[in-house]
């Protein structure tokens, strides 16, 4: 028995935990949970929990359907909202095949594999996402979308509801070992942002899974619906998940070079070059919903062009300005991601793209100096555009060796098949937009 497993067993006993939730993630990034009683925990640590994976999206093919959930004892947490009435705990799991080898359909294992690869090259991957989301009066899709603080300039009470929610959420996150950097009201009505403190990517991906759950749960308790849908409202900005990232080597920020104008090392420049070079191939994963592209196309805060700049909201990669005496803070910000992505897979692909840039010594294209306000100006500047639809993104991904290698055959194929089916059913759907425009006119 590993010491961390012993710690979990003792704590479960001492704190009278009644239920242990084993957590994992399907291929699209939906949360899955199996609850077991503490009495079973020791056995599950030793042998894993066997279950039929064929019912989980993107897991098993029918002929090899049984898999094992192996709890990662270092992720054990007591659930802060269940402290008194029914103490419960959570543990994230890795999924294995019955022979103990990593299961190819498990997104957490995919990220582990990509991180290990970067580690073999001497790098640790640190990330910090800015999580944006909307508080809505309800989650009913048949009625118009109504932000909870739509009237925030006039109605102090509704504005308070949202800031109370955010405060409670922040406390809950801290209790779950998820440190918050900032939180504030975003530009759009009902839109809020909570920025997480940077940490190693696997821990952060776990944190994002918890984050989405906590935000929605706290909101639900107050009869508010929180959504991470990228673009719930017309005419105002959507929700992104701008992610700050840096590679570290031997406890030094490998992105920092004091002699460079922006403090960027060669490693950083090659990493950026890698993400730009492969950006179109990985967008289907960083932006996996049909709705994701409504955000990317809105011309507001979201990036549309495969470019980089020090300070330019329309570029894909931004270099935040840092103080010269703070080498640790040198980082890049990848702005395409939205909060409805699967963080394990999205981080895997961005890292793989960046590492490719380093391994192959990609040359970084010049900084975008002009404001790219439309496709023509981008084309004139020789800058590519991000895919404008899920369909286009899937075509790019399908042709990508990098995506196939980083995700592994199993997830690569399933993801394409599943997202294509989604696109097909959307293509057949007659929208309100069409009815409004065409019904009377034609």
């Amino acid at each position: 028995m590993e010491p961390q497993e012993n710690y979990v067993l003792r704590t479960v006993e001492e704190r009278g935990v009644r239920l242990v939730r084993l957590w994992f993630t399907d291929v699209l990034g939906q949360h899955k949970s199996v609850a077991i009683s503490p009495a079973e925990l020791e056995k599950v640590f030793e042998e894993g929990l066997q279950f039929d994976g064929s019912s989980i999206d993107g897991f098993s093919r029918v002929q090899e359907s049984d898999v094992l959930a192996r709890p990662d004892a270092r992720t054990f947490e007591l659930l802060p909202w269940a402290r008194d009435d029914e103490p419960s705990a959570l543990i994230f799991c890795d999924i294995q095949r019955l022979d103990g080898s990593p299961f190819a359909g498990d997104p957490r294992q995919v990220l582990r594999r990509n991180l290990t690869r970067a580690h073999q090259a001497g790098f640790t991957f640190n990330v910090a996402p800015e999580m944006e989301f909307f508080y809505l009066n309800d989650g009913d899709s048949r009625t118009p979308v109504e932000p909870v603080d739509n009237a925030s300039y006039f109605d102090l009470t509704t504005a308070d509801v949202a800031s109370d929610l955010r405060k409670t959420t922040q406390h809950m996150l801290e209790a779950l070992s998820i440190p918050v950097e900032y939180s504030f009201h975003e530009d759009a009505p009902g839109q809020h942002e909570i920025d997480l403190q940077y940490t190693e990517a696997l821990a952060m991906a776990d944190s994002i899974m918890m984050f989405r759950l906590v935000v929605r749960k706290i909101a639900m308790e107050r009869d508010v619906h929180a959504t991470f849908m990228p673009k719930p409202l017309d005419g105002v900005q959507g929700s992104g998940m701008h992610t700050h990232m840096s590679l570290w080597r031997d406890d030094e920020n490998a992105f920092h070079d004091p002699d460079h104008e922006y403090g960027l090392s060669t490693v950083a420049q090659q990493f950026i070059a890698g993400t730009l070079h492969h950006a179109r191939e990985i967008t289907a994963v960083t932006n996996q919903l049909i709705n994701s592209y409504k955000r990317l196309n809105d011309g507001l805060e979201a990036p549309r062009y495969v470019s980089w700049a020090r300070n330019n909201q329309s570029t894909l990669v931004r270099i935040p300005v840092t103080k010269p005496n703070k080498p640790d803070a040198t980082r890049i910000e990848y702005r395409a991601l939205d909060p409805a992505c699967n963080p394990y897979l999205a981080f895997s692909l961005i890292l793989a793209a960046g590492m490719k840039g380093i391994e192959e010594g990609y040359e970084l294209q010049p900084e975008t100096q002009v404001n790219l306000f439309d496709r023509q100006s981008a084309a004139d500047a020789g800058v590519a555009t991000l895919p404008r639809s899920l369909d286009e993104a899937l075509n790019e991904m399908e042709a990508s060796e990098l995506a196939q290698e980083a995700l592994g055959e199993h997830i690569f194929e399933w993801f394409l098949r599943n997202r294509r089916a989604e696109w097909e059913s959307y293509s057949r759907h007659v929208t309100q937009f069409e009815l409004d425009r065409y019904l009377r006119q034609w």
Partner: protein
Amino acid sequence: MNNPTILVHPAPMGSSLTKVLDVLRCEWKAVSDASAAQTLEPPGGWSGAVITVDGNPEMAFRIAKWLRSREDAASATLMLVSAEALPELADNTEHFDDFCLMPFHPAELEARLEHMLQRFDGDGDTAIISFGPLSLNVETYQAVVDGRSLDLTYMEYELLRFLASQPGKVFSREILLSEVWGYDYYGGARTVDVHIRRLRSKLGEEHASLIATVRSVGYRLGTANWS
């Protein structure tokens, strides 16, 4: 209640040390090297160690290091050192808990040993590490501040336990990483900062300052040893 068993190096040991250990009702075994330390370890584990630096400093610290590296390293280590060999300690501060200058005064050594053993493992059954409002039960892995149980992850607990086992002592991120996480972990020293931040948050505003940041050095629990 078992008497604590103390590791003594080198073997054979001096008679003045024997007297001190007898007064303290300690069992003791003298070992000459790290492998003997391993083979002679009693079933309940070493409760503490008295290691003489002079003569063979390298071996002395090898044994001290081994004591620290064990899984349930709840033993306290005291180094005996002459004034001439004192500089040897500077490079190895993370491997021992206390030291005493040779030739030692029996009363001083006795007091130091007693204090050190109490802090680590009073009666061999339960080990409570206390510091101010904070207390950790090493047996049950529970941490309490002001009577309130802390909900900690394993690594948060281990880090707090390590800091609390030597209050007032400053540990660098590198030391914390290697001692608490082990070398196989690849989160980097940043991991330490992240966990310190989490611990402070869980200790609550009132007690967050129990863990102090020592600029460009590292972290310590409580105020400095010599202030």
